[in-house]
């Protein structure tokens, strides 16, 4: 079964954009979530990532991340309420607890826990949208010139983990299919078998990498190399030119890249300027004070609107508009001249 967070290629702007643009856009929203504590802005970031995820078609990822994130948020609220006794409004006194001392549950600690949980949930949804919408292979390919070995390791891990999960599922199915009379198979034997299998796979992968020359120095064309046509490496199209190095003749950029870079930059600029103007006004203790000033509301509104960056006119709307444009361009019966 496919994980809800697994990348699925879709003809949507976020998936079509280059990894740098998608990371810049989603990263800017996550940065805002870490930069701000005001719950209005955090809710706006949450709204933005949910809208972005849904517009990118990552419904399952958003749903699963929301479920996980809100569960974690609830846990954080409970823990914070029990661990932190600060705050003015005492709701309940739970007596002396070992390690904790006197436990007073305060409204402020619950609200502070809610803000911490909200941040965690927002970040989880942001990463879920990234995971479901940004092609990991393209990200790794983009990283290869910077950190080749790390990129290779990450590539292998990103392949072997799902393979191990699939192996585990197959082993469980096989154990179940032996029938009700068979002795139950515990987790330990399954884990042992899985480990042995993964070691076999690792040896295979190592042999394959060796055969493909991964252990050798990267190939560099000699001076005076002859023309051998064009070659596509990653997002660049390069061409051998006699007596020259690789010559970049073009970049395969998505037409959505500029939009995502611009929105990401705008979100960051608005967040930083807003922070300087006091848009992050929020105090947890001793009394909760949530800033609702113009700067806070403006930052929240702009951040929430940034969630529409992956928007694309639907095919139906697009074709209807095209038809309308054709109709308006054609001359009426009888001529207009």
């Amino acid at each position, binding site marked *: 079964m496919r994980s809800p967070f697994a990348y699925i290629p879709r003809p949507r702007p976020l998936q079509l954009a280059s990894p740098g643009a998608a990371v810049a856009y989603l990263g800017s929203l996550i940065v805002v979530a870490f930069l701000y504590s005001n719950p209005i802005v955090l809710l706006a970031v949450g709204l933005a990532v949910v809208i972005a995820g849904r517009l990118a078609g990552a419904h399952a990822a958003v749903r699963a991340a929301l479920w996980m994130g809100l569960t974690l948020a609830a846990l954080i609220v409970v823990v914070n309420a029990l661990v*932190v*006794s*600060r*705050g*003015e409004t*005492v*709701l*309940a*006194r*739970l*007596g*002396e607890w070992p390690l904790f001392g*006197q436990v*007073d549950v305060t409204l*402020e600690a619950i609200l502070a826990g809610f803000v911490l949980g909200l941040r965690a949930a927002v970040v989880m949804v942001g990463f879920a949208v990234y995971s479901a919408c940004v092609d990991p292979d393209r990200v790794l390919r983009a990283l290869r010139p910077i950190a080749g070995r790390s990129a290779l390791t990450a590539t292998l891990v990103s392949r072997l983990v799902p393979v191990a999960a699939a192996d585990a599922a197959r082993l469980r199915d096989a154990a179940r299919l032996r029938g009700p009379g068979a002795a139950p198979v515990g987790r330990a034997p399954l884990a042992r078998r899985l480990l042995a299998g993964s070691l076999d796979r690792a040896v295979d992968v190592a042999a394959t990498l060796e055969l493909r020359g991964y252990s050798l120095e990267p190939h560099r064309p000699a001076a005076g190399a002859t023309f051998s046509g064009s070659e596509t490496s990653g997002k660049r199209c390069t061409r051998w030119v006699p007596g020259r190095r690789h010559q970049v003749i073009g970049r395969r950029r998505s037409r959505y890249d500029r939009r995502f870079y611009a929105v990401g930059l705008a979100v960051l600029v608005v967040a930083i300027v807003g922070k300087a103007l006091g848009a992050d006004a929020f*105090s*947890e*203790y*001793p*009394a909760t004070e949530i800033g609702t000033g113009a700067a806070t509301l403006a930052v929240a509104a702009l951040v929430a609107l940034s969630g529409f960056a992956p928007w694309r006119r639907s095919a139906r709307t697009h074709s209807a508009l095209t038809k309308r444009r054709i109709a308006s361009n054609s001359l009426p019966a009888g001529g207009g001249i």
Partner: protein
Amino acid sequence: MRGPGTAVALALLFAALAAAGCGLGPGSAVKDAELTVTRDYGTVPVLHRRLGDLTESDTVMRGLERNADITTRYGGGFVQSIEGLEAEESAVGSLDWFFYVNGVESTIGAADYALHGGESIWWDYRNWDAAMRVPAVVGSWPQPFLGGYDGKRRAVAVECLGGGSACDEVDERLEEEGVGISARPPSDAIRILVGPWARLRGDPAAAQIERGPQTSGVFAEFRREAGAIRLIGLDETGNDAADFGRDPGLVAATRRYEEPPVWVVTGTAEAGVRAAAGLLDAGDLRDHYAVAVDGGKETPLPLR
């Protein structure tokens, strides 16, 4: 399936929680407390309130928050400003808010300091370059003798070290305030040492005064000059600011490590000790860190 067993278990759980002091709401009411906010070693009053709505869940921070306009830092554990007076690091020095409960500096934060009712809470905004720690002050008289410190009432011992009639006066002043004096005080008793400085300086806690305000928190020093002991008053920066006359007295409080606070009612000679004993009332000590007396004139310390 839920049965009567579940109901009994739940009833027992709630009974246990109630017995352990658990319950909804902030708990029952406790006695009133007193809140004083000053700046510059108590010289400028900022506000004074009677805290009449205290409950058993209240802390110093909750009491302050309800009665003053404050801002906090570090997750609400550190008071940054009270009534707009903000902690700062400037050319003048390091200015911060410090609090005393019953005249004793707390070793824990205001948010964790539980109030039990009857306390005298004093917040002071001061420059702490000369003395980062002033462990005890006299400005909450008759505390800590009446209500103790760290949430516990303590025995009080008056140690007469050649104080003569001043010792009797100290006893009387304490009794007037309703403080019982222990004949055989335990080791955690709050002590008042009464006598001339030449006798008191043998006490390890009192001897800290000779090592300056950085050690004792007292902005006064006794110095031996030309065979005579002199009392020198210091200013906020710890520099000499006044050389008191021939027979001055001093009332000050200090504390050695985590031992109980020690008050000194002393002077360079017996007349000074008697004058110092005469200062033991709320009118003379109120909101002062320490007080010197010379020729009948009281001088709060540190000097400005």
